[in-house]
């Protein structure tokens, strides 16, 4: 299982901030995980689409799309940050 977290605008659009997911076979990278989530359709298809400007972190470190994702990871998706 992995823990998925969604923040800010994305959390509202998806209607959830946290879920547990059993990593499907063949999903080993962040990009593959994002594509898998987009296949849920509706808001997921829209928000996780490749053209959307999303950032992601694996185990609380910002990573690129080709970063590996493995069982036990905490994976977060979020819009560009706006603090300060």
């Amino acid at each position: 299982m992995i823990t998925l977290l969604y923040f800010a605008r994305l959390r509202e659009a998806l209607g959830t901030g946290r879920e547990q997911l059993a990593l499907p076979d063949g999903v080993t990278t962040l990009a593959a995980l994002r594509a898998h989530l987009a296949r849920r359709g509706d808001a997921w298809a829209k928000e996780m689409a490749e053209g959307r400007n999303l950032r992601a972190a694996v185990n609380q470190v910002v990573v690129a799309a080709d970063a590996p994702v493995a069982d036990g990871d905490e994976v977060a998706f979020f819009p560009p940050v706006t603090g300060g």
Partner: protein
Amino acid sequence: MSVRVQQQDFDISAEIAAMRRGNPKIGAIASFVGVVRDVNDGDSVATMTLEHYPGMTEKSISDIMGQARGRWEVLDALVIHRVGTLKPTDQIVLVIVASAHRGDAFAACEFIMDYLKTRAPFWKKEITPQGGRWVDARASDDKAAERWKT
């Protein structure tokens, strides 16, 4: 070096006094306070809510302070960032950097703030007369952070 993410307000003079106490090597202290404005992108802002990523937010700010320490002579540093609901005139963020000389203190303080704005996971949602809206990231903030790469 410390990082605090909290709902409650902060007192800059108390924080500076605490940093100076018992450290005679400090010759310069630079600080920055960010404040909630009443207008953003042409609309009046009634309140704003700040969301963060508990754990990662603190870690990313600590990492930014570590980078500052690697580039300048930093004797001590503090970042306090508020979360939750804030209103115009409220303080939102505090950066304090102590150094032996002003050049290092000024530069490190500005660097920490520029990197915090573009890397630390916080998100602002403004409540305006038209309703709630998530604030968009600004290209000017990316540009400000970019200049430290040279």
